[in-house]
């Protein structure tokens, strides 16, 4: 029978069927887990709880731990954190990871960074693997052709103890994107477009396969940006078939197979695509030409609109926008202090943030630096760049990008999640309007009562220069 990429990944990892399912319940499988990633914010709790229950980690060689969420990103950082109890998380995670014999990318390690940045760049994730992490943006890593998804802490305990998870088989949806993205349109714009069109629940309980000529042409980092936001669709995860670009990108990285194993891996990966006549529960087709640079205006990623557009009117939604409710629409307008029909370009901003597992890889920093070179951040705007990993930071510095950011007036930080979310430490401040390359614009996501607008690195850089939301394609106007 014709199988999808997901079917192949599922079948290869199915230890046994636990329940067969009926009436739309896909059943439950016991699924073997190849890699487990942990970070100090939720992973430490999982390791500690496992210890307290008197159980061991089944195979520590499959477990990788990083410090990214509560660790400071200020230069000269150590175990002390601005988050009041952050040090407890760092120490507890370090101790538990060491006792368990897991591989730890600690503060100061050149491999440290945001979990979804360091796993691909070290080839911990590989096509054909299953990978889990107690973090909702684990879907990012599906871009490499792995079945990678976010779990809770108890499930992480389960995976650590047994090397498996009991998984409800998701439904399947293919999003086929065809054609060329217009000049100046990035993967982030595409990600925001997909969420605006399908809605915050638009992928619920589905695994999404992104396919089509647009996807094939996307560089690997851009694929990660797109897959990163699958969780904003409530999807189980996203996956992209590995191809020659995937293999070329992975070759030679720390945990990539070598020699004969590399050849065997290439042969295995060549099988990892959806068969021609495989059937999906749902199919969505998107024409890349319909995608423009986007920015979010509300408090859910779904509430995004073309940068050159206006805050939508509830009464006249865009033709391709997902349905919303008057309550959600009204609440977002109040929180964001915006009125319907306000132009998005020109909204004055207080801060600009470039970072996160969505957009803090080298090509993202290059795109921003290309706009910042020879320009200055507008007076009164606080601008921060936080590379996604220590390695991204080093590579950027080798190209002199740090100098460009600093000369423009950006802060240049150590790698981590930083102000992508509010841990109780640093914040942008109440009612401050922030343009950000992150993935969530929820109420108080970047600090109590902070107002977040999601956008691409280029749009964030252009807006930082202008002091208001600006179009990176119209630099002469800055």
């Amino acid at each position: 029978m014709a199988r999808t990429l997901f079917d192949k990944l599922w079948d290869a990892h199915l230890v046994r069927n636990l329940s067969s399912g009926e009436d739309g319940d896909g059943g439950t499988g016991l699924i073997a887990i190849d890699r487990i990633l942990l970070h100090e914010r939720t992973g430490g709790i999982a390791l500690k709880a496992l210890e307290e229950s008197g159980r061991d980690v089944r195979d520590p060689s499959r477990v990788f731990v990083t410090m990214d969420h509560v660790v400071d990103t200020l230069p000269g950082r150590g175990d002390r954190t601005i988050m009041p109890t952050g040090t407890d998380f760092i120490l507890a995670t370090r101790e538990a990871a060491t006792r368990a014999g897991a591989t730890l990318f600690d503060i100061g390690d050149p491999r440290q960074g945001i979990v979804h940045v360091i796993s691909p760049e070290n080839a911990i994730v590989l096509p054909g693997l299953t990978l889990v992490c107690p973090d909702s943006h684990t879907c990012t890593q599906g871009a490499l052709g792995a079945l990678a998804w976010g779990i809770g802490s108890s499930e992480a305990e389960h995976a650590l103890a047994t090397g498996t998870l009991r998984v409800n088989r998701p439904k399947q949806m293919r999003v086929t994107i065809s054609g060329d993205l217009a000049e100046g349109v990035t993967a982030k714009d595409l990600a925001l477009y997909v969420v605006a069109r399908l809605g915050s629940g638009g992928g619920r309980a589905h695994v999404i396969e992104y396919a089509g000529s647009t996807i094939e042409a996307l560089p690997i980092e851009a694929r990660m940006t797109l897959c990163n936001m699958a969780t904003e669709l409530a999807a189980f995860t996203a996956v992209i078939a590995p191809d020659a670009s995937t293999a070329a990108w992975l070759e030679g990285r720390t945990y990539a197979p070598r020699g004969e194993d590399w050849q065997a891996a290439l042969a295995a990966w060549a099988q990892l695509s959806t068969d021609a006549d495989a059937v999906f529960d749902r199919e969505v087709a998107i024409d890349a030409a319909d995608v423009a640079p986007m920015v979010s205006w509300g408090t859910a990623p779904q509430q995004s609109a073309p940068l050159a557009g206006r805050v939508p009117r509830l009464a006249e939604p865009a033709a391709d926008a997902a349905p919303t409710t008057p309550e959600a629409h009204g609440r977002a307008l109040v929180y964001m202090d915006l009125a319907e029909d306000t132009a998005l370009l020109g909204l004055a901003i207080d801060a600009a943030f470039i970072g996160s597992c969505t957009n803090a890889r080298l090509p993202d920093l290059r795109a921003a630096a290309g706009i910042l070179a020879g320009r200055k951040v507008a007076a009164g705007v606080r601008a921060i760049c936080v590379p996604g990993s220590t390695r991204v930071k080093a590579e950027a510095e080798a190209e002199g990008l740090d100098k460009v950011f600093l000369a423009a007036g950006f802060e240049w930080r150590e790698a981590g999640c930083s102000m992508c979310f509010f841990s109780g430490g640093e914040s942008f401040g109440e009612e401050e309007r922030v343009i950000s390359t992150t993935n969530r614009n929820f109420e108080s996501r970047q600090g109590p009562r902070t107002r977040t607008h999601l956008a691409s690195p280029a749009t964030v850089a252009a807006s930082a220069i202008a002091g208001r939301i600006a179009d990176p394609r119209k630099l002469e106007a800055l």
Partner: protein
Amino acid sequence: MEPFLTLTSIAAPLIRDNVDTDAIIPSREMKSVSKRGLSAGLFAGWRYTDVDARVPNPEFVLNRPEYAGARILLGGANFGSGSSREHAVWALAEYGFRAVIAAGFSPIFRGNCIRNGVLPIVLDPRPFNEPGHQIEIDLPAQEIRAAGQTWPFDIDEEAKLMLTEGLDPIALTLLDGPMIDAHESADRQSRPWAWSVLSQGEPA
């Protein structure tokens, strides 16, 4: 875990779409490396007018006397979206909630509920939004009874088993140890590249 069979309680309505886990338990309330001590931070951003001083917001549903002691929460679409933090469920459970009836759930949140003895039911919550009404949830029969009416609901077999038996999923899976071992040794043969790399350690 305490088995979930039936539950009779009033229901507290929080029928908004996309109530995310940051709203259920804000990051700043997750202060310690522990699953406990989270209930005071439940919905902190909405529940208090001054979070630091814990000054209750009288408007918020959990502070209204008519909903005191509710063990059922009513939610809108896409309940529990956002971050995977299991703290959201730990906080709800510690506060006393044992069931959430919502138009839809985020998949990670739903899984976290089941692992912590909280029953997630996908149904239109509005019929149950009647202050003072006792609502009876019967998980084995998969129905809700209230005001003389009955509503059936769906739940997958695995989740039902976990909840009704109060099972520890790890213990259950470990019973399959030999099958897991067999799967693993076959996999080491067929995909050596997936295993050999694990000993590669330091950067090349």
